[in-house]
């Protein structure tokens, strides 16, 4: 396979189709003609750009009755390619049984092979979605030397973007050297560079297509990417953060309703929890009416999402749970999997109904309006630097005091409360992250995260055991649980209890580390007032 040596963008008059430029170098000639072929292109990535961030590009190329999925590195180096059959449906809805991938598509739905092997660890639980589509008219020409021997192929690409917005993209010219002719082809590219209207391509075709459609790769992140300064009025800072959090809620809305992958709901829930945390800890910084009006609304929204998320967690961990069965078999557990699937469908339907409800629509419009009103005339004091330092210090003190009060005989509820305090501290660290030194911030969050993981494991296994009992009761009631399945579920309950006990025994060490002088110093560094 020829590797692209150089790519150019052709800058020409908008009303004439771009063509291969004439070059003045007598050592080379470019053949005329060249049959045009049409290629339909769909670039795919996860909603949070995992492939792009990993330096990868995945493209479905459809033309002449064939379709091929091609994974390349950013520099165009081929990593894996796979034919997917027929010429239709690049971007059609999922659900057909024709063996071709349909979008959205999870890693597990791709056919087995090198492509899936490369993609699975990168995309994880996220689905692949079309991020841009284009139609390319490709015309191939040959560059020849004085012996009339081909030294390179020149591919002219007249591309029209069709999704997410329609529009022409700048024509591109790719020079690919034939094996053994790299030196001559390099001289040819030098000659092309000197031709009028030829500019070295600064970005690959994928990014060019996205730019033509008004998008930028990496334009979604669930992180709170707002830039605060310590002297900014606290009310304005909080309103900015709340607005950004609601951007995240809205960005994930469609994917959550369509159940594209579990991360849409996860990101939406985290944004809601962060919002609730800001409203709870804002105190007098924001008008009292805002908290009293919206705290119940965001609680409602959070509660609406809980059943589906709990079932997501069960289903995501199902294979691992089934794989660890010792006495029972995976087949015996299957009715439980079926039950989870049915429950998930019901919960998902309820969730979608809630997110399409008038209550949610009201929340969306009024929340934005109220935030805009505060942002228009925010109280000038206090500055956010002081607020951040005070709130982080207070939240940290509460974690330390609640943690110290936990003994070997403390009930599970006290660990759950501590987990909530830890979450509040974590959200504050994340909300005010832009005020802090990134290295200090990273260390503090990492330490807190280790403690949260332990508390999360304890609480999640607690909840899952209780849910498992409920599931068993439901399955008994609707007679969908054979005895072997209940026994298998019992084994899972035992495994959860062991995990919970392990997490409980690890808690002391984790907390001691967090509350150590070094740990305290790390958080202390973030409680300095930033100007």
């Amino acid at each position, binding site marked *: 396979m020829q590797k692209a040596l150089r790519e150019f963008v052709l800058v020409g008059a908008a009303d004439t189709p771009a063509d291969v430029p004439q070059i003045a170098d007598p050592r080379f000639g470019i053949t005329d003609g060249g049959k045009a072929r049409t290629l339909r292109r769909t670039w795919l990535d996860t909603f949070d750009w995992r492939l792009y961030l990993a330096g990868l590009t995945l493209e479905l190329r459809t033309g002449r009755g064939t379709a091929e999925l091609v994974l390349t590195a950013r520099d165009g180096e081929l990593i894996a390619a796979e034919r997917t059959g027929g010429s239709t449906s690049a971007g059609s809805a999922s659900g057909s049984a024709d063996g071709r991938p349909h979008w959205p598509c999870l890693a597990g739905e791709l056919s087995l092979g090198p492509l899936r092997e490369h993609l699975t660890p990168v995309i994880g639980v996220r689905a692949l979605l079309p991020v841009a589509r284009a139609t390319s008219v490709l015309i191939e020409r040959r560059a020849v030397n004085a012996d009339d*021997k081909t030294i390179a192929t020149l591919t002219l690409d007249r591309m029209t973007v069709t999704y997410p917005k329609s529009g022409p993209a700048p024509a591109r010219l790719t020079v690919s050297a034939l*094996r*053994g002719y790299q030196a001559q082809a390099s001289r040819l590219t030098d000659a092309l560079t000197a031709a009028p209207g030829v500019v070295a391509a600064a970005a690959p075709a994928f990014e060019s297509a996205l730019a033509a459609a008004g998008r930028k790769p990496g334009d979604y992140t669930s992180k709170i990417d707002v830039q605060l300064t310590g002297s900014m009025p606290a009310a304005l800072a909080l309103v900015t953060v709340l607005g950004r959090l609601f951007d995240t809620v809205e960005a994930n809305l469609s994917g959550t309703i369509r159940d594209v992958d579990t991360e849409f709901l996860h990101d939406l829930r985290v944004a809601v929890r962060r919002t609730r945390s800001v409203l709870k800890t804002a105190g007098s910084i924001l008008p009292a009416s805002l908290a009293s009006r919206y705290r119940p609304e965001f609680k409602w929204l959070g509660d609406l999402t809980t059943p589906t998320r709990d079932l997501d967690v069960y289903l995501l961990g199902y294979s691992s749970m089934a794989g660890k069965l010792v006495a029972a078999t995976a087949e015996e557990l299957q009715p439980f999997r079926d039950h989870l699937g049915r429950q998930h469908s019901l919960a998902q339907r309820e969730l979608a109904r809630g997110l399409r409800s008038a209550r949610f629509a009201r929340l969306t419009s009024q929340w934005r309006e109220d935030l805009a009103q505060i942002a228009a005339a925010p109280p000038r004091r206090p500055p956010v630097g002081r607020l951040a330092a005070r709130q982080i210090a207070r939240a940290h003190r509460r974690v330390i005091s609640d943690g110290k009060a936990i003994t070997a005989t403390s009930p599970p509820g006290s660990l759950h409360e501590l987990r909530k305090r830890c979450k509040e501290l974590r959200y504050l660290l994340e909300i005010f992250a832009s005020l802090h030194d990134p290295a200090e911030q990273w260390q503090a969050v990492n330490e807190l995260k280790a403690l949260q993981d332990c508390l999360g494991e304890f609480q999640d296994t607690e909840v899952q055991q209780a849910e498992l009992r409920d599931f068993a009761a439901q399955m008994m009631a609707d007679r969908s649980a054979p005895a072997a399945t209940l026994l298998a579920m019992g084994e899972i309950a035992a495994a959860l209890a062991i995990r919970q006990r392990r997490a409980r025994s690890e808690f002391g060490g984790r907390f001691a580390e967090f509350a150590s002088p070094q740990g305290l110093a790390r958080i202390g560094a973030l409680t300095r007032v930033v100007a």
Partner: protein
Amino acid sequence: MKILATYNIKGGVGKTATAVNIAYLAAKDGYRVLLWDLDPQAAASFLFRVRPRVKGGGKALIAGKRPVDDAIKATDFDNLDLLPADFTYRNLDLHLDSERKSTRRLRSLLTPLRREYDVVVLDCPPSISLLSENVLHAADMLLVPLIPTTLSVRTLDQLTEFIADFDGHRPQILAFFSMIDRRKRLHLEIAAQLPAQRDDVAATAIPALSAIEQMSVRRTPVAASAPRSQAARCYRELWQEARERAKLPDPPPQP
């Protein structure tokens, strides 16, 4: 990877025309093909418009100081690469002689290419030499063009006997009649009788045709420039016969 070689002690019998067309047809069938022009006259290189020059010459190549891989050039045809000739190849015998296992050197030079190519075609100079002995040891199949004369048949017998004395690997021989002059009764008689009498003579024969001679003017295989011509048809049949007798597996799927 299968190695085919066009070989005959005599010159001007159609070795290069056969090597070039067989290599082209194999590539067209989807095999990844390398044609090595071992003849310092560089006719195959000329036909593919590749300059007959190898950096470091034949000496560096045979001594392994320059990887074979570095000298390979793409032709203008998909799947078909060429290792060009170099005028220093006239001294290949000397360079081979200074190597250990001097009769197996060519085979060992080709070994690293087995993942990259499905078929290698060796276009040999007319001679009986250390180089030709290397070719006989490297090849899985010898394509031997014969002018239909009694002396040519005798030469084939000598070659067969020589190979029969090899220890271990012996190439399969597929002789075929080349440059048949339809106006000559002897040509027609021998070309008709011998394939029926001997297993190592192909049923396909290549007539003397002006289209084949014109290859040097057009500088392209006749199977590419005139695919419907009689010459192209004959080479296609010969390729099919060689492919079947060499038991070549199906080509890999196209990328």
